[in-house]
């Protein structure tokens, strides 16, 4: 009888928190993303149709592949940090970018990913460029001491060095915010503090794009190649940069508005949309030469947009707002029940829309949408 009791004695000490020497947590650039059943309910920032599947990226290195049949699979990703954008050039090759300047690459439609670049390398690229620029300009201005343009450029170069050093010192923290590839070979990624990198070999080698005029190191939020072959970069403070030669040279920067621009979208008929902070929507019919402002029914910041096959335009943003328009002028509003920010929208099937945002993935049937539009 007593022996039976004794055998039941558990050990209290098991659950006592003691400082144990453990391996510690590897850096988030070095540890794989955790597999979790909650990935679809955690923050998702961007999505794209890839073949019949839907690829989504988001917090903690989550990449989800939603099959047309309804399966939802979390992909193996080598980093554990917030991914901010994804872009596939075909139904196999794609890139995703995120915090710490990370660039990931997939060759199997998003099922697996490998790291191509991170902020440590970008920081070095930018510092090398800034230092060489200082050296070049110091030499030039020594030759021509009265050239004011040169001394301004030199000041900018000094600032660029300081900024690059600051970026390296704290660690590779600065996020890349968008990525766009022209082909499986050539693409660009843009991000915070004027980060912009370019590759011509599918991401094996990246270079810093120094020709873009951004001495204040403002954030570059989005990048898009247009149908006419030109490249557009938009970002903080309503700035838009445009290059017609693949980023070799850039037209003088234009400031379209005070509000930051978060997303560029070109629709089937060639019209160009720029959307951003506080309900900003700008429309261009001439590949971004001239822009007009569109008045929207809400002042919510807009983060994502898509055009459906029937020409319907969808914008999503802060507070779970979804704006719908047939003509790009007159928008009607739908409110997601969760009221948390929506960051991306895409058509999942003929009848169903996929929405991603701070609360993860949700589906919305077009019938319900039509019914509830205000």
């Amino acid at each position, binding site marked *: 009888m007593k022996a039976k009791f004794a055998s039941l004695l558990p050990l209290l000490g098991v659950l006592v928190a003691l400082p144990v020497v453990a391996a510690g947590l590897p850096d988030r650039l070095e540890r794989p993303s955790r597999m979790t059943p909650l990935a679809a309910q955690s923050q998702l920032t961007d999505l794209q149709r890839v073949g019949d599947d839907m690829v989504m990226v988001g917090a903690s290195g989550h990449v989800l592949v939603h099959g047309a049949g309804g399966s939802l699979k979390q992909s193996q990703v080598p980093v554990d940090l917030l991914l901010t*954008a994804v872009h596939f050039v075909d139904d196999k090759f794609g890139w995703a970018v995120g915090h710490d300047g990370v660039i990931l690459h997939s060759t199997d439609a998003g099922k697996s990913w490998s790291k191509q670049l991170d902020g440590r390398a970008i920081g070095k690229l930018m510092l090398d460029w800034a230092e060489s620029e200082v050296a070049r300009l110091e030499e030039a201005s020594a030759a021509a001491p009265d050239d004011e343009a040169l001394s301004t450029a030199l000041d900018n170069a000094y600032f660029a060095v300081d900024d690059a050093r600051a970026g390296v010192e704290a660690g590779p923290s600065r996020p890349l915010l968008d990525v766009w590839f022209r082909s499986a070979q050539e693409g660009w990624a843009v991000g915070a503090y004027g980060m912009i990198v370019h590759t011509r070999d599918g991401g094996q080698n990246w270079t810093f794009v120094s020709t873009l005029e951004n001495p204040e190191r403002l954030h570059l939020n989005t990048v898009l190649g247009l149908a006419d072959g030109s490249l557009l970069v938009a970002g903080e403070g309503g700035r838009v940069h445009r290059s017609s030669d693949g980023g070799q040279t850039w037209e003088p920067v234009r400031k379209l508005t005070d509000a930051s621009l978060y997303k560029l979208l070109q629709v089937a008929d060639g019209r160009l949309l720029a959307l951003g902070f506080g309900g900003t929507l700008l429309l261009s019919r001439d590949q971004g030469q001239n822009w007009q402002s569109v008045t929207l029914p809400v002042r919510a*910041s807009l983060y994502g947009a898509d055009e459906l096959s029937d020409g319907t335009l969808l914008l999503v943003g802060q507070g779970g707002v979804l704006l719908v328009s047939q003509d790009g002028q007159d928008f009607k509003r739908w409110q997601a029940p969760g009221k948390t920010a929506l960051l991306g929208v895409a058509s999942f099937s003929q009848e169903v829309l996929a929405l991603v945002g701070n609360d993860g993935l949700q589906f919305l049937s077009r019938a319900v949408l039509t019914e509830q539009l205000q």
Partner: protein
Amino acid sequence: MNAQTELVRSESALQRLVSLTERALFHNRLLVLAFFLIASLLLGWKALEIRPDASFTRMIPASHPFIQNYLKFEDVLRPQSNVLRVVVENPDGEIFTKKYMETLREVSDRIFYLPGVDRGNLKSLWTPNALWTEVATDGVRAGRIIPDGYDGGEESLAQVRQNILRANMLGSYVADDFRSTIIRVPLLEVDPETGKPLDYGSFTQALENQVREHFAAQGVTIRVIGFAQIIGDLIAAATDIALFFAITVGLITVLLYLYCHCWRSTAVTVLTCLLTVVCQLGLLSVLGYGLDPYSILVPFLIFAIGISHAVQNINLMMSEMGHGCTPVQASRRTFRALFIPGTTALLADAVGFITLLVIDIGVIQQLAVTASIGVFVAIFTKMFLLPVLMSYAGVSARGMRQQQKRANSSWPVFRRLARVVEPRFAMPLILISLVLLGVGYYARHDLKIGDLDVGAPEFRPEARYNRDNAYLLKHYTTSTDVYVVMFKTPQEQCSRFAAADLANQMEQTLRDVEGVESVASLYGHMRFSIFARNEGNPKWAEFSRDQYVMNNARSGAPSEFVDPNCSVAPINLYLSDHKAETLSRVAQAVEAFSKQYETGEIEILQAAGNAGIEAATNMVIKVSEKQMLILVFVIISLVVWWEFKSLKVTIALMAPLYLSTVLCEAVMAQMGLGVKIATLPVIALGVGIGVDYGIYLYSRMEGFLHQGLKFQAAYFEALKTTGTSIAFTGLTLAVGVATWSFSALKFQADMGLLLVLLFIWNMIGALVLLPAIASLLVCNRETR
């Protein structure tokens, strides 16, 4: 040989002591009565002063490492631990009316001034710590929920609604349907100015009168959830509990009279039992104890123990008088016969109760003290006062006729029952018991520690508290079961990237644990703050390696998220329920995480919050339950061994008790009752109460055996007197407590049921199983 003489000598020494006591007692009967009269008056007067007394600190296992950690950082953790949530509902619609907001302000103010409230941490829409932040083109803006120029107009109210959304208070402080809001009221267990402990009874009374009733008249519905309210409701139900006690006592009195047909012995029995309870309460009061709501059943248990001893006494007394003794002679003979077994049994009870002290939870230790004092008093009232009183009162003529009738009976039932000591009946009986034990073991497997249901298991599901709790669960997203993990860094390091990254990883890992619904912490706040400062762009919602960014992100964090030194950040896990399984699952997940990643610089400490504290309580109870049972059995076995000087007899006495303990646990498991603070004592007390029967029965049998009777004959003779008393007591007490199942308090109803089972099982065990086992172990060819 030597040991034998030693034994005889000590036996006779004991006998001499009994004779000495007997002479002293019966030669000074008036003196004894006077002593008890004075003592009763004094203690009775003190008993009037006894007050309900409860404490949050006493409910928690103070030396458990979880609680040690909690107490170390109590200041920052209090808002999640001993806290009341006051729900103020507008039954007529949404909260955005001038009238509602005004009433809410009054409620908030009224609560602010209630003594015992931690005013600095009080939080409602109206308090200055309810803030919102928002991002604009020109940076971050912040303000109070109720705007500065608030005038109750439409515009102001729209502003309030917007601020609630901006502050992310929907689902936590404001109901999802906008029809009610919550006022969070942390309590101070000790008044920092006067140093006096919080009086839960008067606090909840004040809350009831000054808030709930007062504002109900003003058209809002008030609901209160939290530990203090449970205690308040228990204290308020004390009159109900007392009423049921009174019913039980009345019922037992009637049954007692029907049994003995003698109003004198009935009156003496009930009187001495009640006196025991009064003196117990008086002694408690003298010693400075109050009556904790969780110990409220103890006075009744003392009454029950008293009854079982008194019935033994009057039964034997009647039997002696039936043989022609005078009341005084009968009383003296009874005293001689019962003093040793009675005192031994009561000592065993006391020891059983005192073992509850091993449980490191204040309220259970208090219960141990309360019960032991009661038994201590019972030794005096039952062993000394009762015989003296009976020597005066005697037995009425009717009682004697009843006794005569009984004595002349041929005892058909007992005669048949006595045959269980024959091996051909004893063996199958023991086999059946073993099967029962097996079944009990199997059924006991489901026995859980802690609470098994949502809400407060002390009350019925339809009780006000549980309805209020259900309302809160239904209309709010944030649950009331909060498990807090303390994230401890060196000073001023809480917002470092490495700390945030680790904390975040832990939060993500724990979010995956079944039962964790959401997480709130400094780090969630910082992440929000970082993207808020980047124009509110969610793509920035990630920690930065840049310390400036992290420090900025920390500023403005609510005080419940981090201590002023930036060294402790509570990670609040909101759980789906507080079932024991959920709690231990979370505790194990946290432990596993910290084992894997903790490096020494940063410590991950468990646990606070009501759920964290309950997890610790469960762990302590789980361990202590086993310890306590082992101790109870070992110590009571020693007492029994000391009394009978035989290992075999000890086994025969203890085995039935073990069976009833196992069966009691099995029934608990099947009924969905968890082992917790409220139920744990019953198990220990059950053993204590059960051993009395066995000691009385076997000591009587032993007497007959010494007179040379065969085992079966001795058993039969013992059944006639002691056995009748045991059967009567067991049944009477069982019937008495069975009425509790009608109690409005589920706590009392559950206890009632468990006690019914224990009384009956112990009775059957002592009457039937004990002799059966003893016959196999003790008998030889001669004695059979």
